[in-house]
């Protein structure tokens, strides 16, 4: 665990003020943190998504990062090529793929290929649990029962656990993170930057318009997800560890009641008590898996 003190963080901004993100945008929090964590070593590779818009339009750029915009399914493969160029030409820097859950759905084979080859990059999936840039459509990581514009009565399928999938891909570093705990995210980015090879961070990013909560509550919503146990922070750097922030919530009695998290979101307003009990059962199951991984992995 890398300890991050707020007073020690650099003041230089890599996501510039006045950018075109929505109010309360979790990606903006994440991108700011990326700048604070890794600074000018970052070269961004961005597939289609909300960040395409946040990056700026016309002759304006919101980034002080170099940034290559790329087709939806291509980003980790582009980073493979860029990483090769940096290494061969003796340039110090890290290709950082910044994508959403859409990019990791459509580009899953690309993600898998880059991970299997252990190509040199950090991939961050800033997951807002639906295709938000096109207007809130269901993705592979959308919560069971969540309403989206393509699941107007609630999603019928289970969400996929992308970080555990990447762990089983034998990535060199895998972590989950949350925009509710940016020091933890920055620490994990710095840890990732000290490890060679393919590094993956799954960043939980509650989206005010997509989930239906007030734009002032992004951080609170992200923290509630962790406190109710629905989002578990963990890290694999050769050894699987539940992060200290999530550790108390292994004990179910310490968790915030799940309904407090769900009822604040428009996408879950239709849930019955039975639905909430079922989601709770699934969260318990997830904890069982993660606790077992801590024992054996």
């Amino acid at each position, binding site marked *: 665990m890398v300890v991050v003190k707020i007073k020690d963080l650099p003041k230089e901004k890599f996501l510039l003020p006045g950018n075109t993100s929505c109010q309360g945008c979790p990606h903006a929090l994440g991108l700011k943190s990326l700048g604070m964590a890794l600074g000018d070593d970052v070269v961004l590779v961005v597939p289609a998504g909300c960040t395409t818009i946040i990056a700026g339009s016309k002759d304006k*750029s919101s980034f002080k990062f170099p940034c*290559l915009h790329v087709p939806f399914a291509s980003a980790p493969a582009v980073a493979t090529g860029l990483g*090769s160029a940096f290494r061969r030409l003796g340039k110090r820097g890290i290709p950082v793929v910044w994508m959403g859950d859409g990019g990791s759905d459509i580009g899953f084979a690309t993600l898998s290929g880059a991970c299997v080859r252990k190509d040199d990059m950090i991939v961050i999936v800033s997951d807002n649990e639906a295709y938000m840039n096109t207007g809130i459509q269901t993705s592979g990581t959308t919560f069971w029962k969540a309403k989206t514009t393509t699941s107007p009565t609630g999603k019928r399928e289970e969400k996929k656990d992308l970080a555990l999938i990447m762990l089983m891909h034998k990535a060199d570093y895998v972590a989950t993170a949350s925009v509710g705990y940016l020091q933890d995210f920055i620490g994990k980015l710095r840890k990732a930057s000290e490890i060679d090879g393919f590094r993956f961070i799954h960043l939980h990013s509650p989206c005010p318009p997509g989930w239906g909560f007030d734009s002032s509550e992004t951080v609170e919503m992200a923290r509630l997800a962790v406190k109710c146990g629905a989002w578990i922070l963990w890290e694999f750097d050769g050894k699987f560890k539940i992060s200290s922030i999530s550790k108390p919530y292994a004990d179910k009695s310490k968790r915030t009641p799940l309904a407090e998290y769900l009822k604040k979101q428009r996408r879950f307003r239709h849930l019955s008590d039975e639905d909430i009990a079922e989601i709770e059962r699934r969260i318990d199951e997830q904890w069982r898996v993660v606790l077992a991984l801590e024992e054996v992995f």
Partner: protein
Amino acid sequence: MKKVLTGNYAVAEAVKMARTEFIAAYPITPQTTIVERLAEMVEKGELNADFVRVESEHSALAAVYGASAGGLRAFTATSSHGLLYMYEMCWWVANSRLPVVMALVTRTIGPPWNIHTDHTDLLTLRDSGWILAMSENAQEAFDLTLIGFKVAEQIDLPFAVGLDGFQVSHTAEVVDIPEQSEIDEFLPERRRDKPFVIEPRNPITVGGLTTNECAMILRQEMDRDMEKVGDLVRNAGYVRDYDLVERYRLDDAEYVVVMMGAWCGDAKDAIDVLRDEGVQIGMLRLRFVRPFPAEEIAKLDCKKILVVERDCSIGKGGIIATEVKSVANSPVQSVMAGLGGVDVGVDDFVSMFRRFVKGELGEWWL
């Protein structure tokens, strides 16, 4: 030095002699032996390049795109379905003005599954902004690959070298290989800052949202730059002279055949047969589809032109014939033949050309 090489091995040899720095490819018949040979060259230390075993053609060109944006000389190769799978990236590379070179071993698009040559796959790139060359034999596949790097890096447009599946790709021929020193002089190290370079601590953004006018100006500039490619090819300074077309027995030709690819060899034999019979017939062979050799076709002064092609735009017919008709000053007849790899030999061409001269030729040859 003369070597006996298949078309695919000739391409691999050219990629090696170009001192290519980055190769990513996914196997597909009949392209596979190009990247197998390159992988072997890299493993043996004959070629100092990064060779990435990607999981798809889309990722092959995506990785090549990243490497080229980072300043490296980069190459991939594919065929048919592989090309269609990477199609999105083909346009992205072209609009990014990156000087990537790709070998395209032509193969029929399925279904039904078919591994034999057909030019429809190559022609799907027609409007994308790639320079499109089509070789007749292993020597041309070798030469055009090297010229491809030179021209692509001069004009900032990607370059595809076509070669017919099996007929060129797997047929061993004698190839005249220049000295490495001659190639090094012809093709120095890539200028890494052109058209742009993505690197740490150089905060530029490429490919993001922009004005509609900017998107249109990009395509306009690409179209204008494509027009300069003919002169760049003719003045490339390569060890052999090249042009957008080859003229075969054309000087006094009353009948002109327009074709491209490997089967032109058989067609030339057929032209010789008709010449012996006193028919004034010749060939304008397209070595490039993009840029389209419009001037060369417009200059043809003959009784009539026959375009023979192994492709079809469903609902419009021969793709090359449509283009030839748009610029020719003589009547143009179109015949589609050899699609799906259907064999068309010297005897077929003799019969086809006789019927063309007599005005008895239909639109499909089967």
